């Protein structure tokens, strides 16, 4: 399981726009880089990221080799109701990871 750092406000007002910041540990090997032996290292990147809010997707991203290692993705979402934010990463070589964070939305 790769380490992640996810920053979500613990509490938000209904209708407020929340900033969400995510970091995940991953080398994002480009597939263009030669190793010490001169041979191209095989690609190993995260390709997809999504955020679901109480089961509904509110944000998605498609990543390419140009994304720096230990990908940082930040975006916004409307605070609609209390519940669970679910973050999902998947990529080469069957890489898959899901993290969940609880949020409280007050009136």
């Amino acid at each position, binding site marked *: 399981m790769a*380490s992640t*750092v996810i920053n979500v406000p613990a509490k938000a007002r209904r209708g407020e726009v929340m900033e969400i910041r995510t*970091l*995940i*540990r991953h080398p*994002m090997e480009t597939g263009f880089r030669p190793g010490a032996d001169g041979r191209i290292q095989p690609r190993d990147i995260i390709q997809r990221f999504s955020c679901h809010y109480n089961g509904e997707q509110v944000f998605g991203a498609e990543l390419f080799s140009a994304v720096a*290692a*230990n990908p*940082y993705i930040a975006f916004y979402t409307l605070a609609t109701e209390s519940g669970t934010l679910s973050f999902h990463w998947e990529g080469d070589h069957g890489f898959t990871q899901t993290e969940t964070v609880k949020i409280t939305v007050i009136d």
Partner: protein
Amino acid sequence: MKKIRPSQRRAGGIVLMMLAAAMLAPVLAASSAETGQNQAEAKDSRRSGFEFMGASTQAMQLNEALNPGMLWVKDGEALWGRAMGKSQLSCASCHGDAAGMRGVAARYPAFDEELKRPIGLSQRIKLCHVNRQQAEPWRPENQELLSLEAYLAYQSRGLPMAPAADARLKPFIASGLQRFRQRIGQLDLSCAQCHEERAGQRLGSSLIPQAHPTGYPVYRLEWQGLGSLQRRLRGCMNGVRAEPFAYDSQELAELELYLTVRARGMSMEGVGVRP
């Protein structure tokens, strides 16, 4: 790199002496009797590498939600409580809560009784791992080792660098100072020539910092990962085409110690980010 002309060398020598005096003032003051007055009067021209970076890299370091080094700190937190080796002891078994380790990273490198020389924090962690936890030794820059180092550096963030005023360290500090000034490698350059004489000038398009180890272990953008001060020093030695000192060698420990003493009093940055 341009050849240094004799007139430049003289001027450079004078500049070097002035800069060295300004930077060594805290070092010398700490060991002299008139400590307070000298320190207050000597203008501190020392600047962290943080101040030589662009605004977005600085923001990356300052904000824990943005700092990639926090990924290692998080791993370190998990490792702190994990039973390891034949002993099945965790770091916490002996050291308790990590918060109680605040100040530890600030006083390294420290004199090691068994090796009878200074060792850095990473070497200290390695020794504990092998001797106390009875685990297999970690290879240099092992990710678990770096995570623990990051976690401990994080506990000391904001504290001044404070290696012990231990008389036994004096000859090693002197040795470290000599190494700092020693020209090495095919490019025949010393640390001092870049990091004291030319700090603030540019090498290629990069600003040359003063080389204070206040942000280590550091997330270096060039590495796209976290690394130790030893790795950085070896990288510089490679850069001037010198054979790098071995990991955990006395030579690297002396340099690390000298750099830390030279940076005495400067604020530790937790896990720094550098270009």
